């Protein structure tokens, strides 16, 4: 068999994730890319449960569970500690959910990126606080229902543009990814490993109970998010140079919306409104990628 992603399994079976959990796949892929010389720190999130109760673990690398708001700062500390003890090789990875990244952890993250500490921050984004039972986060998309944004009053704000915020921090490397595209995700992690300084990767991780979908659709939906341009895959170098990882012909948004209970209440007009938002954003991305072309060419020549 020709494997398209590394064969080695560092994460093991038996973990506590729900059936069809995208967050789990994200970890499986990440560890394949990063290898065993990796240390994780994990704030409160589904993964705090998925990894398993004391005295067990599923990840197969050292893992420091930490307080919800602290992932990035702990990673900075681990990095400094390792460096001082002479280990500059081991990958130090903060692994956090969207809540722990977009909301309560954004300050520590902003600090780590500003100092340009040599760590990889990976946000697996299931678009709500899942571990506590599906409450709104600032990563929850416009229109979605959660337990704190009931159908009558669905989420009114757009998803926070975390990659844009990271880019505004002039982070050396940031990228989006999706569990439906493991090869792409792994390629990006390899770039992150090679790039000195702070790196931020934002991976969409479908969540059947949170999105109110059938578990078997988890990958399909993560793929549709990309195909409908809802969640474009792209990279930004030095906070300025944009590159689309793929530019699929757009599928109808409704293909993505319909299978998801969290969007069930949306009217046709509301979906159309959402579609407009999606296109606007995608167009802007393409524009930015266009403008960055010369830089990538210059880089290639070097």
């Amino acid at each position, binding site marked *: 068999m020709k494997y398209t992603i590394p064969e080695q399994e560092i994460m093991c079976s038996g973990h*506590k*994730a*729900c*059936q069809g959990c995208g967050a789990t796949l994200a970890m499986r892929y990440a560890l394949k890319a990063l290898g065993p010389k990796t240390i994780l720190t994990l704030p409160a999130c589904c993964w705090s*449960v998925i990894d398993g109760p004391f005295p067990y673990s599923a990840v197969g690398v050292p893992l420091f569970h930490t307080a919800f708001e602290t992932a990035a700062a702990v990673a900075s500390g681990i990095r400094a500690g390792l460096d001082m003890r002479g280990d500059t090789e081991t990958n130090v990875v903060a692994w956090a959910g969207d809540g722990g990244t977009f909301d309560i952890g954004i300050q520590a993250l902003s600090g780590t990126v500003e100092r340009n500490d040599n760590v990889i921050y990976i946000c697996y984004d299931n678009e709500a606080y899942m571990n506590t039972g599906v409450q709104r986060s600032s990563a929850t998309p416009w229109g979605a229902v959660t337990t704190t944004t009931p159908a009558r009053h669905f989420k009114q704000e757009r998803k926070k543009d975390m990659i844009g915020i990271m880019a505004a921090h002039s982070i050396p490397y940031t990228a989006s990814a999706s569990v439906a595209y493991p090869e792409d995700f792994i390629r990006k992690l390899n770039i992150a490993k090679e790039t000195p300084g702070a790196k931020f990767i934002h991976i969409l991780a479908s969540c059947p*109970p949170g999105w109110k979908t059938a578990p078997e659709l988890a990958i399909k939906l993560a793929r549709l998010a990309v195909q409908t341009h809802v969640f474009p895959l792209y990279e930004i170098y030095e906070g300025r140079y944009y590159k689309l990882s793929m530019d699929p012909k757009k599928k109808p948004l409704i293909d993505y919306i319909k299978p998801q209970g969290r969007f069930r209440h949306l009217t046709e007009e509301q979906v159309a409104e959402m579609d407009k938002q999606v296109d606007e954003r995608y167009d802007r991305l393409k524009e930015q990628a266009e403008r960055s072309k010369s830089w990538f060419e210059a880089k290639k020549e070097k």
Partner: protein
Amino acid sequence: MLEIRFHGRGGQGTVVASKVLAFAVAREGRFVQTFPEYGVERRGAPVVAFTRIDDQKIYIRSKIYEPDHLLVLDPTLIGAIDVTEGLKPGGWIIINSDKPAKDFPQFAGFKVATVDATSIAVKHRLGSAAAPIVNSAIMGAFAKITGFVGIEAVREAVHELSPVKKDENVEAAQEAYDTAEVPKEQS
């Protein structure tokens, strides 16, 4: 005081079943206390819930270690875990199963009754065929078999507690009530 333990799996409505009993009992003017054994288990893992019923205010707030009676929402649990742990001799064990009570000889010393709540749930389209939600049906049967609570109160409780398909749930409870056979050994 009556102490009842519920066994099921995450996603089957075990905790809701215990609440149905509580709400029904309260409607009859009695005192009740119900609570889950709260874990952080995801879908599919074993789940336990407890209900206490009394004629006066209930103060005891520990878990129930020696229940008077059991409800088992998922027969696959039998064997996987020791459901009867602590069960008082002579207590009821009401099992969601399409098999007759006599197929559970291991429960000698207890009063066993079965009800095919799954079929009733599927019939009323409660949950999916792969994962039917059986709580309404089993509570209907429970009312009939034990007589601890009236079907009227159970119907009202089911209605109040069902987030969707209220009527179907009530009907499932009623059907289970109507069809459940009270085993002879009941004194």
